[in-house]
């Protein structure tokens, strides 16, 4: 097909100049200036002093640790819950399962911070479970597990979507052969379905990991105090302390982490069967 295409019309690089210039001004130039800002020293010169002070500081290391811990925990739970739900939706047809998987698509377009807000009413100091179980003042919601819970509620569909697509391409005859050979349904799941869907599960999981590393709205709106993530640290340094160089150092590290995850994820996607 590509041969036919290149016979039809040649590529004209000229037209690519306009969008690339626009991207250069609106994206590459700002990111470049931010990177330069990370190496501004407190006295206004340039050097590594400020960069090293931030990187070596307890605040940054703590935030990095919290970010990675939250993201890994939430991603593991999303992958588990997403797999269970995708299997149930695909293999145990029930009324509304089709509508449900379309609803999941719409869910992906909604902002994440609303989940944080609604969990406040569910588990917060005022709220359903808060009212049932509370004698102690503060709920678990404003710490590590609260953030994980919110992220799992929001990001599970990102794992389910590629899984549901993978299940659609499964060869059902193969599953029937396995079960007629005496495998239990769970044996079939473990030995046939899981291996076949594993690439999609891993791809969904790495997207989930990237998005949870980058997550900001949930933690901001929840008003979490015990944990700080890298995006929260960037916000705090830039907006609350007007420390642009410090914020830029954190942002630069966060961007490096996210980009390496993202390109790993893209590489994984390329290996998926279409």
């Amino acid at each position, binding site marked *: *097909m590509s041969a*036919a295409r*290149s*016979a*039809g*019309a040649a*590529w*004209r690089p000229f037209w*690519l100049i*306009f*969008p*690339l210039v626009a*991207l250069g001004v*609106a994206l590459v130039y*700002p990111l470049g*200036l*931010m990177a330069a*800002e990370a190496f501004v020293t407190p006295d206004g010169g340039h050097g590594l002093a400020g960069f090293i002070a931030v990187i070596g500081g307890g605040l940054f290391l703590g935030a990095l640790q919290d970010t990675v811990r939250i993201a890994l925990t939430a991603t593991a739970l999303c992958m588990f819950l997403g797999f269970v*739900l995708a299997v*149930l*939706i695909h*293999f*145990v*047809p*029930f009324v509304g399962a089709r509508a449900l998987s379309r609803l999941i698509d*719409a869910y992906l*377009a*909604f*902002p*994440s*911070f*609303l989940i944080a*807000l*609604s*969990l*406040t*009413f*569910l588990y917060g100091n*005022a709220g*359903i479970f808060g*009212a049932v179980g509370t004698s102690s003042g503060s709920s678990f919601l404003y710490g590590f597990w609260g953030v994980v819970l919110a992220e799992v509620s929001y990001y599970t569909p990102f794992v389910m979507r590629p899984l549901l697509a993978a299940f659609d391409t499964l060869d*059902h005859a193969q*599953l*029937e052969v396995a*079960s007629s050979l005496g495998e239990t349904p769970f044996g079939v799941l473990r030995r046939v379905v899981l291996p076949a869907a594993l690439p999609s599960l891993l791809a969904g999981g790495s997207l989930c990991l990237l998005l949870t*590393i980058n997550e*900001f*709205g949930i933690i*901001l*709106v929840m008003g979490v105090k015990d944990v700080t993530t890298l*995006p929260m640290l960037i*916000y705090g340094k830039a*907006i609350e302390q007007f420390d*642009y160089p410090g914020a830029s150092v954190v*942002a630069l590290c*966060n*961007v490096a982490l*996210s980009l390496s995850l*993202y*390109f790993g994820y893209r590489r994984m996607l390329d290996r998926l069967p279409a």
Partner: protein
Amino acid sequence: MNGLSFSAGSRRWLAALAGMLVLGVFGLPLLMLLLASVAGRWNGVLPSHLTLEHLRGALAGDERLALWHSLATGAAATAFALIQGAWGAIAARRAPARVQRWVDAVFLVPIAIPSVSIGLALLVAFSRPPLLLNGTVSFVILTHVVLITAYAYLNAKAGLARLPPHFEEMAGSLGAPPHMVLVRVTLPLLLPHLLAAAALGFALSMGELGATIMLYPPRWVTAPVEVFALTDRGLIFSGAAVSIVLLACTFAALLLLDRRRPRA
């Protein structure tokens, strides 16, 4: 049939389990938000003193202004992002694979990195000459364009890959010049994908918080920023009401674009 032979009994159990899990994980939060938006007080298990006051408040004063700002920003940013994304995808379409990989990488960076750091980068870059934009409304719109262009590009690229293969070549071999092929054949065929991109971009822009909160001018508070400001001041029911109206606006826009989409 489907390949897992559960017994009828366990099948029923599993279906109930699936329904409950889905409702519990995805349905319950939305229901909470709805309840909170009409709650007068919430001291017990369920809210009491139901009232429409918060919802009415969400449609008046600063809240209404914030919603308008979000709608305007979303519409403008979506339009620019569609042009930029579709243009990029079409222009890079016949490029050698190596060039395409680079164009992809540059276009998709905003998906990969945290929106807060994009906000910071724009703040650092456009608060100084030669391009002084900080404090203007167009700065917010530019920020949203930067964030959602990647999705427009992705959708347009996916659409181009699925175009019926020979229409454009036929138009070309019948003597249509390239710009005519583009306007009369390529773009109309691409339209469903562009509308899908518009719907997604608009929804994302309506809900954008991370970058906007870094750089919004005080006279252009968007709805998500307003929700944060309200809840931060402890006005959680008003925050819930604004969120409900925000969700309703987003959903209405999605439906509108979906109905406009010609069925394939």
